[in-house]
């Protein structure tokens, strides 16, 4: 029956093109939306994911990584006192204004990390080393922010909140959810930007690595008992909290979800409509097949083969289209998360949508009276 499905499908090229257009549209829209959403969530959780810590300690009611609140940094001693903690370090997340060479200024996200341990440092460097920020007013900027900040030249001097910093290195792939450029510097230097508004002995995060990650829950409970004014989360829970905040509380996730769903619905409707119109137009042929001894299952095979082939072809073209557009989209500052697993998952979603859209055709076939073949 695959033979007949192919023959019929390619005989009617106009209808095939309409079907493929629907699937390509659906694939591009859904893939773009989902990969953009995942890219944004990747940006929002990038620092959390790349720090090899099991536990994150933060001020009470911090909703996501970008909106940190200060708390006394001496609490790190309570963390280090737990026997299962291998190491604990502080991390500052704050904000500043970077003066641009072309005039004006840009708000930037500042991450202050310990250059001796490298905990919280950028994970990919294309120039210099994270430890290069040690011992003075040095900073690392990310190549993805070059478009907004201007050319990043190692050794160039920038003014951040009226304090001059030398560019010691350039990182790659660090973006914030808010799209503000990310700047890394030594913990002590970052402190000056935070203490402009809070007390000197404050920090925003303490991160800790455990000897046995299986004891994360137990350690969190022990810490919570002595640090009642802090939230203590596992790495996984902090990622989840950050993702949920941006997805649910801001409605951003719903926006992406609805657009992706719209893509699937419109694509599915186009496929369903063309497949159904095709079935209606070929009812006599389906009836003839029944009269000639074909079973309903044989006829379903024809319809599902056609839908399946269209879905594979449409999804492939749509995916290729997104891959071709990828660098252009990313140059515009939008991160796309295009993991092979995403393609696999979306393929099955698109395929299921196409199969689902063939439901009315299958129902029509099931109830088709082969006597229709005798009508002139």
């Amino acid at each position, binding site marked *: 029956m695959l*033979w*007949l499905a192919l*023959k*019929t499908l390619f*005989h*009617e090229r106009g209808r095939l093109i309409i079907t493929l257009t629907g699937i390509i549209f659906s694939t591009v829209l859904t893939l773009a939306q989902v990969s953009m959403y995942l890219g944004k969530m990747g940006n929002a959780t990038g620092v959390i994911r790349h720090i090899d810590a099991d536990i994150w300690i933060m001020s009470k009611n911090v909703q996501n990584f970008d909106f940190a609140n200060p708390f006394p940094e001496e609490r790190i001693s309570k963390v280090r006192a737990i026997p299962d903690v291998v190491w604990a370090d502080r991390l500052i997340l704050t904000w500043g204004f970077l003066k641009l060479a072309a005039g004006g200024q840009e708000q930037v996200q500042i991450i202050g990390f310990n250059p001796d341990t490298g905990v919280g440092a950028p994970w990919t460097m294309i120039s210099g080393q994270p430890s290069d920020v040690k011992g003075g007013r040095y900073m690392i900027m990310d190549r993805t922010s070059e478009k907004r900040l201007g050319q990043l030249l190692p050794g160039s001097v920038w003014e951040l909140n009226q304090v001059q910093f030398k560019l010691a290195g350039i990182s790659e792939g660090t973006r914030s959810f808010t799209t503000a450029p990310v700047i890394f510097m030594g913990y002590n230097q970052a402190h000056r930007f935070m203490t402009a508004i809070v007390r000197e002995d404050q920090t925003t995060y303490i991160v800790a690595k455990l000897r046995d990650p299986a004891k994360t829950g137990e350690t969190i409970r022990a810490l919570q008992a002595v640090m009642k004014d802090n939230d203590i989360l596992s790495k996984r829970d902090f990622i989840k909290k950050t993702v949920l905040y941006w997805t649910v509380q801001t409605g951003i996730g719903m926006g992406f979800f609805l657009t992706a769903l719209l893509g699937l619905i419109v694509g599915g409707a186009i496929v369903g409509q063309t497949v159904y119109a095709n079935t209606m137009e070929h009812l*006599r*042929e389906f*009836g*003839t*097949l*029944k*009269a*000639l*001894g*074909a*079973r309903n299952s*044989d006829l379903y095979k024809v319809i599902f083969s056609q839908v399946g082939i269209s879905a594979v072809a449409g999804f492939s073209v749509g995916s290729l289209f997104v891959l071709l557009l990828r660098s252009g989209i990313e140059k515009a500052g939008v991160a796309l998360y295009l993991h092979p697993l995403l393609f696999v998952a979306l393929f099955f979603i698109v395929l299921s949508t196409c199969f689902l859209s063939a439901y009315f055709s299958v129902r029509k076939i099931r109830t088709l*009276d*082969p*006597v229709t*073949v*005798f*009508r*002139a």
Partner: protein
Amino acid sequence: MSDMAPILKAIEVGKVYGEGDNSIVAVDSITLGLSKGEILVIMGPSGSGKTTLLSIMGCILHPTRGEVIIDNRRISGLSEDELPDIRKKYFGFVFQAFNLFPSLTAIENVELVLRLKKTPKALIRPKAAELLEKVGLGRRTVFYPSDLSGGEKQRVAFARALAGDPPILLADEPTANLDSKTGMEVLRLLREMAEKDNKAVVIVSHDPKAEALAHRVVFIEDGRLRS
């Protein structure tokens, strides 16, 4: 001429559409037998129940009452799932509107039935070509139905009906869409099939030419056989 033992028997078959006051009796208690090599022509006015009777005989339509027996096998009791195999094994159909697949060439239309009948792959193409040769279309095998004349289309339909060598051919108004000369040729072809290949042939027709070549003619009116 014909073997005496009927290959197909319709016993007291009837078909009623609808229920109660709105019911319509399409076929009313008809008994017919058909033997191998025999050509039976069913004639009657439009709406008399000819096609319904043909559908019942071809196991396409379940009768409301009565029995259909093919090759000594009672068909009426079979489930919907079992009927496709019966149709595949015993029947070849020829339709008034040819019912060829426009996306398939002449030879592919014939191959379709051979594929449905699970003919070994290597035999499909030669067998289909042989059947088209038999109906005089050996040189038109790769033509699509849209490129064939009405008579040629009906010949392809004959070749398709013969594919898989069914013992019974059912033809519904096979000459209705053809001119007189082509219609005559088609009918001669049917007779040749019945006689040479010992097929049982049922033709539903208005065409007096069909009557001329039949071994037996029955008239049907208001769903009943006219004596």
